[in-house]
């Protein structure tokens, strides 16, 4: 008998969670996970695996959960995804595995994401480790950046036996997982534990090492046999409208770094980094970062408006994040765009906005938003958070001689993720300019294969 409905995911009640930064979904119990896994049809030709950027064998691991073989499920997951607890929480499953799930045609697709994080968490809680048999090799590989693609590349290379050293600019590892994604979506103890796995494997992580500043790219090239550049897309984009110099205007990056990395929500009692959030906040954009920023602003006690120039249909945010944001009281306003930030005494006082209409589709396939002439209006806001995207950080790019940059500001690579410099590969957001965690994980794995080929062919 086919069960059309998902096993419901228990969540922190809205009225509680808007006052804390704790994780919102409470996760499956073992019984719930088994029940959810048993819904799987075990398709003869499962589409889910093909739609996973790292090719997780979904059918197999879900079946193992259904049979209560959690350890086997963990090993299945780990062969293709080094960080299941993280990916299960942040992947846009509705566009990938769950989006093509056969069950989705007649009912709700299997909750693959939550099953994945269930297994990852279960393994952590029970100190389960996959059996490892590393045959050491002499070659040394440098990985620049400790975000998702750096993690997956390091893990795969280390399993091949290479000596891997990660260089991380910040004082904590994890890249966007650490500074970008908030605690209520991805608890940092999960990030720390998943990263602990790297150290168990024997990957060296050098924190506070900023390639281009306190270690030069040339030194890295001299010291290592191959390099993987995965410096992410950590630089904020600004709208470049008038008023961005005002106090009360943040890039989403600043707002989230203060909140997630520096824990400004525990200021001043526990942490020292402050944040200023007004009574009424405008978050510009509708991607995951915009949702994250809006939900943080809400937790700081602000009336929070998400202003988006297109409509809900075009919004790039993950479905769960959008739903959570709206449930929590974020006011989503579509077809509206800021044209100017007005200030008083140096602080944000209001936004000049214009209503938008959707025109013909643009190159992204989404209908192009156009300003509706004469619809300009002014509205009071105290804080403006710009979440309109990020780009690769030029700190590294400007100081890495020989690396070519493409027209989007990302590093130019070939189909094997090799750059113009022999032995130097690149992946993740530093080539794409901003995508998903899982895509970055996938590129990290591809790069590891290319690096392995490069190094083993060399000798």
């Amino acid at each position, binding site marked *: 008998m086919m069960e059309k409905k998902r096993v419901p995911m228990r969540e922190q009640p809205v009225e509680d969670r808007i006052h804390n930064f704790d994780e919102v979904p409470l996760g499956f119990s073992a019984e719930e996970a088994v029940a959810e896994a048993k819904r799987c049809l075990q398709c003869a030709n499962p589409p889910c695996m093909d739609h996973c950027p790292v090719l997780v064998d979904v059918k197999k691991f879900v079946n193992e959960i259904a049979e209560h073989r959690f350890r086997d499920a963990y090993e299945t997951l780990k062969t293709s995804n080094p960080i299941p607890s993280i990916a299960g929480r942040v992947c846009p499953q509705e566009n990938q595995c769950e989006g093509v799930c056969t069950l989705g045609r007649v009912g709700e697709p299997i909750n693959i994401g939550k099953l994945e994080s269930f297994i990852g968490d279960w393994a952590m809680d029970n100190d389960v480790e996959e059996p490892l048999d590393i045959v050491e090799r002499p070659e040394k590989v440098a990985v620049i950046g400790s975000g998702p693609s750096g993690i997956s590349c390091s893990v795969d290379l280390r399993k091949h036996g290479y000596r891997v050293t990660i260089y991380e600019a910040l004082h904590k590892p994890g890249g966007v997982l650490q500074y970008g994604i908030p605690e209520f979506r991805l608890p940092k103890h999960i990030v720390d534990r998943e990263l602990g796995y790297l150290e168990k494997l024997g990957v060296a992580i050098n924190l*506070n090492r900023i390639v281009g500043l306190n270690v030069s790219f040339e030194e890295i090239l001299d010291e290592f046999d191959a390099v993987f550049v995965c410096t992410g897309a950590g630089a904020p984009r600004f709208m470049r409208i008038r008023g961005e*110099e005002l106090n009360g205007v943040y890039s989403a990056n*600043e707002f989230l770094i203060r909140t997630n990395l520096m824990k400004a929500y525990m200021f*001043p009692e526990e942490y020292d980094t402050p944040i200023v959030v007004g009574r009424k906040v405008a978050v510009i954009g509708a991607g995951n970062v915009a949702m994250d920023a809006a939900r943080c602003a809400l937790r700081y006690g602000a009336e929070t408006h998400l202003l988006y120039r297109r409509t809900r249909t075009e919004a790039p945010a993950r479905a769960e994040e959008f739903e959570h944001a709206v449930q929590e009281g974020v006011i989503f306003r579509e077809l509206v765009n800021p044209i100017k930030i007005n200030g008083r005494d140096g602080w944000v006082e209001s936004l000049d906005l214009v209503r938008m209409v959707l025109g013909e589709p643009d190159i992204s396939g989404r209908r192009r938003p156009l300003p509706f002439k004469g619809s300009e209006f002014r509205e009071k806001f105290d804080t403006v958070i710009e979440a309109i995207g990020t780009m690769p950080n030029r700190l590294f790019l400007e100081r890495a001689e020989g690396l070519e940059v493409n027209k989007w500001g990302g590093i130019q690579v070939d189909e094997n993720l090799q750059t113009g410099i022999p032995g130097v590969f690149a992946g993740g957001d530093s080539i794409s300019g901003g995508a998903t965690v899982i895509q970055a994980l996938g590129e990290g794995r591809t790069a590891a294969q290319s690096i392995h080929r490069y190094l083993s062919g060399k000798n």
Partner: protein
Amino acid sequence: MSKFRITEKSDLNSQDYLIEVEAPQVAERLRPGQFVVLMTHEKGERIPMSVQKAEDGRITMFIMRLGKTSLELNDYQVGDSFYQVIGPMGNAFPIQRYGTVVWCSDLVCGHAENYAYCEALHRVEGNHVISIQTFPTKDDVYSEEELRSVSDEYYVTTIDGSYGVKGHYIDVLRNLLRERKIDLVLGCGEIKMLKEMADLTRQHGVQARSVLRQIMVDATGMCGACRVFIDGAMKLTCIDGPLFDAHKVNFDEVINRLGMFKKPEGMAKEAYLQSREDP
């Protein structure tokens, strides 16, 4: 990895003090113009700091007793360790022949930069280095001997006239610009005085640069908190600066942005002082 142990600590005057800390990886690479990010403890802020000297694996910072962190720093003693000293950050200033260079400072970070730059510029043949420091009063003066030793000409001014020239560095600079050919003026300290310095040098057609000390979080180009507008174009103090053409800086915006966290910083300071009173 070094533990960032404090090797020396002393008062410069009643408000400012000096901390020397072991940070070999930073000291080895730091050049004049660059700065460091200091984290006192794991939950602390990432604070950009000017460096006066970097030698023998140690760096020397000048710090003012101002906010919570600098008060807390004040409680650290020789032998204690910091959580992190990260850097060097920012761009190094090209040390080359500029001709007659004037360096002006009237605040703690400026005095540290003043020494760091002059020490390097002074060693280049053909440079005539003039260093000017400003303090409120005689008792506040520090670094005089050190700066004399790395400059060709040195002036100290006090606002109340109790020591050196009466007035501000701007007064000495005005005379210098009137009397002779100056090739480059550099400065760091109070923004409103840097603005005056910029106006004055502009009138004389003399190049001027100022070190900006904007609020930063990561200091690696990620947050955009330290954005300034140079000739209308957005630049980040951390990775594009911290030295900028003073004639192109919008100083009013710079001053305004420095005030963004005044309120919570005041709160933190109060809370900290309170916690020290009733342990």
